[in-house]
């Protein structure tokens, strides 16, 4: 194990290399630029390729091409680049191509504030492309060290599920300096709970079986297997077909291979003080969860019966954590309230759901504790003008 004081981008680079990633196509964008830079430095040292796309759309298409040739590939961006992935993301979902995509969230819409953290793409990562008829896997770390672990895990899941996996981070996670331990061999990787899966080659002739099974090797071109992949609805052999029944089978696979096997990653969450039926459950993911965890611990010291639920696996949404009929508070880095809508959907009908938003800056521990107190007293969260709770 080697220790560093380094950024999340450094940790993600090392995680990708440990997972077997040898191809990264990037496009400069704050705050994901340093990941591209770090990949351009590290990948050639391990016989890997770094390449810059002419835009983000090209970058993900370059990754798709490389993955189709057998590489484990990755790209990274921020919100304004993530929307340009809409085109290739759908292609990769439909052709079932394993890829890892990192989105380091900043303040939107559009270019917004480039150098501050935001969480505006919670729903965009669920529907990163058009057309529907699919599920996505999205994971959200809250530290540099965890970003490394989640990167390794994302590559593992991408291979087993044959699908792109998005890591939803934010500017503080990717740019922030932290204490990072990097395993130096397989034993140390195992000790840290890192698991990997090799790229296998589908020999055909049924490249797209209509089943919810995982562990079906992806299409790899250039091995003369007769493999076909396209942007059209495929037959089981990969021919394009305009037929509703064939499409239904294809959609079934894209949805249920993930829904029916999500036990593989549904353990990715963190619960703090949730064992004693708290009167308030604070829900969050990513960087805000670090402030939430501190605030919840301090609130407990003051006798407030508050617990924290931190989601790491964001999509498919883990409804199972929201069975209790109590008060919920969603703390997010946006003003419109995104995660809170999903919480509202998942909780029992008589549960209370509240929202505390901020953007570009984190809430303080003091802010949070005051909010907890208000909610526990049954007071509303309404504040000054545009800071109204309404979402």
């Amino acid at each position, binding site marked *: 194990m080697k220790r560093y004081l380094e950024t999340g981008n450094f940790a993600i680079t090392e995680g990708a290399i440990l997972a077997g990633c040898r191809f990264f196509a990037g496009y400069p964008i704050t705050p994901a630029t340093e990941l591209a830079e770090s990949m351009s430095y590290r990948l050639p040292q391990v016989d890997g390729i770094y390449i810059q796309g002419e835009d983000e759309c090209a970058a993900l298409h370059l990754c798709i091409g490389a993955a189709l040739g057998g590489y484990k590939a990755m790209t990274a961006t921020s919100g304004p680049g993530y929307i340009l992935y809409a085109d290739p993301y759908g292609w990769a979902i439909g052709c079932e191509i394993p890829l890892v995509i990192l989105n380091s969230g900043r303040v939107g819409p559009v270019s917004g504030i480039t150098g501050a953290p935001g969480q505006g793409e919670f729903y965009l990562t669920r529907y990163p492309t058009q057309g529907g008829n699919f599920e996505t896997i999205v994971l959200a770390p809250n530290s540099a060290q965890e970003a490394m672990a989640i990167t390794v895990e994302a590559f593992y899941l991408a291979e087993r599920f044959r699908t792109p996996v998005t890591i939803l981070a934010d500017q503080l996670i990717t740019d922030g300096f932290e204490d990072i331990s990097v395993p130096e061999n397989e034993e140390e990787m195992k000790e840290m709970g890192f698991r990997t899966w090799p790229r296998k080659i589908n020999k055909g002739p049924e490249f797209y079986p209509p089943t919810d099974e995982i562990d079906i090797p992806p299409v790899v071109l250039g091995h003369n297997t007769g*493999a076909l992949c396209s*942007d059209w609805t495929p037959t089981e052999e990969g021919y394009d077909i305009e037929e509703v029944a064939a499409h239904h089978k294809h959609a079934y696979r894209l949805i249920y291979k993930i829904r029916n096997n999500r036990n593989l990653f549904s353990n990715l969450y963190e619960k703090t003080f949730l064992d004693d039926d708290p009167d308030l459950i604070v829900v969050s993911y990513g960087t805000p969860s670090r402030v939430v965890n501190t605030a919840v611990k301090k609130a407990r010291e003051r006798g407030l019966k508050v617990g924290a639920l931190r989601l790491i696996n964001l999509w498919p949404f883990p409804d199972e954590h929201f069975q209790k009929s109590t008060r919920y508070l969603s703390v997010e880095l946006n003003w419109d309230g995104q995660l809170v809508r999903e919480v509202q959907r998942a909780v029992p009908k008589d549960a209370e759901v509240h929202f505390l938003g901020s953007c570009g800056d984190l809430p303080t521990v003091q802010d949070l504790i005051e909010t907890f107190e208000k909610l526990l007293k049954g007071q509303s969260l309404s504040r000054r003008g545009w800071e109204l709770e309404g979402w």
Partner: protein
Amino acid sequence: MDYLAKKYTRPRKIPSTACSGCGLGINHKAVLQAIYELGLEVEDIVWGTSIGCAGRQTFGTWKGDGFAGTHGRVYAIARGLRLALPSEKKIILTVGDGDAFGIGLLHLIHAARSNADLTVIVNDNLGYMSTGGQYGWTTPLGSKTDSSPYGMYEQNLMSDDIDVLSMLKHAGATFIARHVSMDGQRAVESIKKGIRNRGFSLIHMVYPCPTNFGSRELGTRNTIKLYEWIESRAAPLGEEDENTVWATGVYHDASNSRPEFSENIHKNVERIRRGAAL
């Protein structure tokens, strides 16, 4: 094309579902003939296509491995694939004019710029014909289409001194040719040169679309009339006259004159891996 069809294509997809009188099959055959004359086998080539008539009608026809990219992006996909495949594997792309010269032009230019070893056959039916017939970026000036009912008057990539091929030459393509479907063996010879070039090659091949282009511009789906219309506007380079829209032949041949994209990257990765200083 029986012997070529049997050797290289899949019975499920050939004969294709193209419209009666469509010239795409002639272009497709010229590519297969070139492959045959170069002595290449099914396993030597990975075949990529785009969308639209040219893309969809040629997708999945090749007996070996194949892919079809989203609108205009196949050049970026093919460059990624180029880095992953061994250099002896050829990548041939059959695409359309809208895909290459419209939505995909940025990616096409970067494929030329990087001199990626791809052979791109742009099958040009003079506009967006699979969507019913709208003007494109090579539609001859004055032509009527569903979206140019008064005749095509916007400057495009084939008007006056603007030629998409010279753009691609200056972007770094190392082999460029232009043909029409009726060029026969002359087109086959150009395609062969394109495949032999270890770098970016593009062959622009105009083909007749009686169903949509012919019916709007000529007022008839008569195949012979449209073939004559195109042929009378095509002439070999150096023999052009005032009616010539498509001067045919090799525009630019700098084959194997500069480093190929993937070779260059792999060479540099190897150099760095061996411990080159920062």
